[in-house]
């Protein structure tokens, strides 16, 4: 019979499972991407090879399909991938795993009773990459590569929500380049741009993996520090201040020295709103500016 061959040539992964999640069919696409031949997985529990799938969420979805005969959709947005496969397209730089959109559904017998379930796996890495690129265009500052104001406006409420819901600490640094106008006037705007790029790069390299650098305005930046309390925020602030001070920006033949003033604020549980946090950091920045510049000021409470 010719038609069953379609399951082997189709560009989609197909897995068939018994109700106890024993693998009964593992098509060629799955073999190629998993490196596991069908003979090596049929008859075993899916969790033997993929223990990461053994979550309450996944098993509830399986039970739903077996009980109600509905479909369950594992979108790339939330799950990213069900099966940890390497990406195959040229976007492997952006993602370390193939991005997948998976659907689970029932398989019935001649009496229409639900006997097994299937999972179909689609490689959506390319689409996900495209989406991510669009998001980046939308949320990145083209000059410095840092995040932009739009990003902060959407991300900050989310982080505040995380604080409200789970009690996670959150801090914000607001800083700007001292006497930036003077730099532009003395050395020209191209130099000014170079300074912005260079300082952003220096600061960015001093931040931790989960911190976010955002260009807030012309020469004003902020650093959003999740999971961070005031004392740590202050030491991060001091570190970036010191690094910028020690750094010199090459501009044509000149080497320009730059300093920054930094204001530090921590999200207050009594007032866990983005406006309050920004106001705290901003007030601290103002104090840093008016008390001499090239310094860190922390504003513990409003």
């Amino acid at each position, binding site marked *: 019979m010719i038609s069953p061959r379609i399951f082997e040539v189709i560009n989609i992964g197909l897995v068939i499972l018994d109700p106890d999640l024993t693998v009964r069919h593992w098509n060629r696409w799955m073999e190629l991407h998993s490196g596991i031949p069908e003979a090596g997985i049929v008859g075993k529990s899916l969790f033997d090879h993929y223990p990461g799938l053994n*979550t309450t*969420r996944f098993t509830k979805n399986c039970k*739903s399909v077996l*009980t*109600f005969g509905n479909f369950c959709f594992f*979108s790339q947005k939330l*799950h990213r991938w069900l099966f940890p496969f390497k990406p195959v397209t040229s976007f492997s730089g952006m993602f370390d795993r193939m991005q997948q959109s998976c659907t689970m559904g029932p398989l*019935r017998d001649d009496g229409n009773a639900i006997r097994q379930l299937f999972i179909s796996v689609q490689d959506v890495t390319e689409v996900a990459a495209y989406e991510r690129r669009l998001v980046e265009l939308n949320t990145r500052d083209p000059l410095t590569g840092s995040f932009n104001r739009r990003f902060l406006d959407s*991300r900050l409420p989310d982080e505040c929500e995380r604080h409200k819901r789970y009690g996670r600490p959150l801090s914000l640094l607001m800083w700007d380049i001292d006497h930036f106008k003077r730099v532009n006037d003395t050395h020209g705007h191209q130099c000014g741009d170079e300074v912005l790029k260079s300082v952003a790069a220096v600061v960015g390299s001093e931040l931790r993996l989960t911190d976010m650098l955002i260009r807030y305005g012309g020469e004003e930046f902020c650093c959003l520090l999740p999971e961070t309390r005031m004392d740590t925020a202050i030491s991060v602030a001091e570190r970036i201040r010191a690094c910028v001070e020690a750094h010199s920006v090459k501009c044509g033949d000149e080497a320009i020295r730059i300093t920054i003033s930094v204001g530090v604020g921590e999200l207050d549980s009594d007032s866990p709103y983005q406006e309050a946090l920004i106001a705290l950091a901003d007030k601290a920045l103002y104090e840093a500016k008016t008390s001499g510049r090239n310094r860190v000021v922390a504003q513990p409470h409003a």
Partner: protein
Amino acid sequence: MSRQPEPIFTANERDILQEVMNIGFGKASADLAEVIDIYVVLSVPEVALLDASELAGYIGGEIRDFERISVVEQSFMGRFQGVALLIFPSEAGRKLISILGQEDEQTALHSVALLERETLMEVGNILIGACVGKLAELLDDQIAYSPPRVLVEDDPRETVTRDMFNPDSTAIVMRTLFSFENENISGYLFLITRNESIAWMVSALHSFMERYE
């Protein structure tokens, strides 16, 4: 000028439909609890036969106690065809996150807004699948489902507008109030059946009774 819809069901057929709905939603609730560990109480369903132009008004009236709502929509296609609308009060996404299990390492990376939206869709998918699935089973039908989508999120109730529905059809609307007691969240499920299904439904209801001849 609204036309008078022709009587779709006789009184007897309507009684059969009511009993089929009672059984279907009762079984859905029981299976959700016993098999999936999701504890949701489904009220005895009501059925209304409406012109599509009256749908927005009907639904708006039913949900009048909600100020802000989120809506999950999903199409289902068997011989029983239509659209399911789950209408939640706006805090629902946050409260329902624990229903599908603790955050795993993947979900912890996401923004809270995304997690809430996806939770509404996943829980909604299971709830709709349970109700539609059990009804279809009783009427000897099999259903395919489109992926659910969040139609509105935390919007004022007035967003349930006429634009949602094809104006030329007659709709059978099944309504139940669902209540996740542990999470203290209640909302409405509306199953809106398309015109095309009605003839089949009438015969399916008779087939259901014929088993007891």
